[in-house]
């Protein structure tokens, strides 16, 4: 481990992509992501976009719940706040997308901090209930503050532009989503390279000794709420600009639970886990549906029986994961990788 030059060696040791192999595969990944939109149709681009948006939201929840250990049942509401903020700013004030994006994040972060404030006195289940209350209250406002949110009919917005370039198509929006996902993942990673991220994990692991280490619990819990809902707000802004419409139905409690499921399936507190989890939770239902369609053509009369089965299979898959892979997809991936590294020489 000890290598000649102090400074050089520790800097290398602290780098994120340490080996040339991992840098190579990262390059391959970027190449595939860059070529992807030229090779597929609108449906797959649509899937890529909603997956990307889910990834940004999941990265946010991963910081609050996965790393800092504060369970939130209100994440969808913060995505909603970002979406409404963005829609209102662009409809009423004609603000361009690139201005709406950070403002949507900041609006959500503001409410995130408000909701997080009781965490000074509460933790665990009690705090969880506070976030549930926030979910219900924000949903109530989405529905009933009609003059602002358009009530149950919601809001429609015009296709967004960046410097005059139309990003209203699936193809155009793909580049926006991809860029935001890369930035969000980088920011997440950065946070965990510093004392801020370490403090989050310390609070999750042992809040009492964290405080004895000189960590101001309240401040860092608020930081976690702020970052998490900021990313949720960003995801919300992407969401509304992708769909070009929103209604309160887009941000219900079960959407919050879906975000929780993403980070649990992926592996709590793990950035790659949040990404895998978001992909899994978005794509699997879609794949199940495709399989169902296939069967529908063969046995049209069995549909009434097969249709609910889709939800059951999905739920079953999640349970299987929690039982056999408690550390999530991220951990499984590590094992698969090390298997292939050793594979030719295994026996």
């Amino acid at each position, binding site marked *: *481990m*000890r290598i000649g030059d*102090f*400074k050089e060696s*520790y*800097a290398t*040791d*602290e780098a994120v992509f340490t080996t040339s192999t991992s840098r190579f595969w990262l390059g391959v990944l970027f190449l595939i992501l860059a070529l992807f939109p030229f090779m597929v149709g609108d449906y797959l681009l649509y899937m890529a976009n909603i997956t990307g948006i889910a990834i940004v939201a999941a990265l946010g929840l991963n910081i609050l719940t996965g790393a800092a250990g504060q369970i939130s049942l209100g994440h969808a509401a913060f995505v909603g706040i970002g979406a409404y903020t963005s829609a209102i700013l662009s409809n009423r004030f004609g603000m361009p997308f690139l201005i709406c994006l950070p403002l949507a994040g900041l609006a959500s972060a503001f409410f995130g901090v408000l909701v997080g404030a009781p965490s000074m006195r509460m933790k665990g289940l009690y705090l969880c209930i506070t976030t549930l209350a926030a979910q219900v209250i924000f949903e109530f406002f989405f529905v009933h503050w009609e003059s602002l949110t358009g009530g149950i009919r919601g809001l429609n917005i015009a296709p967004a532009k960046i410097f005059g370039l139309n990003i209203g198509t699936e193809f155009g929006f793909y580049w926006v989503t991809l860029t935001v996902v890369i930035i969000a993942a980088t*920011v997440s990673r*950065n*946070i965990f*390279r*510093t*004392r*801020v*991220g*370490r*403090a989050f*994990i*310390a609070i999750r*692991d*042992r809040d*009492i*000794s*964290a*405080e*004895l*280490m*000189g*960590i*101001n*619990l309240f401040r860092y819990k608020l*930081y976690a709420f*702020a*970052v998490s809902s900021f990313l949720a707000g960003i995801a919300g802004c992407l969401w509304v600009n992708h769909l070009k419409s929103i209604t309160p139905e887009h941000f219900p409690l079960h959407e919050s639970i879906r975000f929780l499921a993403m980070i649990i399936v992926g592996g709590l*507190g793990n950035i790659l886990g949040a990404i895998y989890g978001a992909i899994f939770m978005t794509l699997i239902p879609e794949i199940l549906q495709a399989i169902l369609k296939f069967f529908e053509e063969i046995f049209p009369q069995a549909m009434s029986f097969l249709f609910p089965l889709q939800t059951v299979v999905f739920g079953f898959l999640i349970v299987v994961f929690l039982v056999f892979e408690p550390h999530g997809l991220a951990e499984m991936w590590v094992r698969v990788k090390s298997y292939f590294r050793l594979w030719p020489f295994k026996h």
Partner: protein
Amino acid sequence: MAILEVNNVHLSFGGLQVLHDVSFSVNSGEIYAIIGPNGAGKTSILNCLGGFYHQQKGQIDFNGIDISHLTPDRRASLGLARTFQNIALFRGMTVLDNIKLGSHAHLKTGLLDAALYWGRAHREEMELREEIEKDIIDFLEIEHIRKQPVSTLAYGLQKRVELARALAMQPKILLMDEPVAGMNAEETEDMVRFILDIQEERDLTIIIIEHDMRMIMDISDRIMVLNFGQKIAEGNPQEVQQHPEVLKAYLGTDKRGQS
């Protein structure tokens, strides 16, 4: 000369009187031991010093300033660091990250710096790594485990990592709660060597709780004996060993104190 002064501290939980009118003062640079049977209130004293328990009466002065009403994190940044009787490491993290956590209060990276990880945040992390490697990891001989999650380490090593984390807090006073309990002879010897080196090289004051009498008599400058929440004796090792109250309450009749 006194870096820490504890005056007439009373602590009770409901009807249970845990500390009764405890006063003592610790001089800068000394190793001050607190001994006494189980349940005497030794850990509770450390908890009062650290701000985790709040005494009902009495005052605690650190460098002449009353710290009785400060929160634990404030006291930590003033220079109080602690190792625990039951290891309190962050189990999911690596040894290196646990130690880095100790430095928390001395770092400046804010939320925005952290998100960008440019310039200052990056520089600070690199300096921190170098400092920890040089002053702590080398010193405590834990190079070989720096990347391991602490939960995978043997008990004796975990205790050493806890000491490493406390040193990263750059404390003025180090509070150690039973640092060698449960260790074998070799591990104990290592730990004693580290404690003496720390005191000598780092100009640190150490308050130590321990049941290992031979070790305590060897390394302490002064000893306080606690029984049922009351201070029953104080003095250098010879004085304490011969104190009649101590012989009666704690050491039994065994003069050499191998209880």
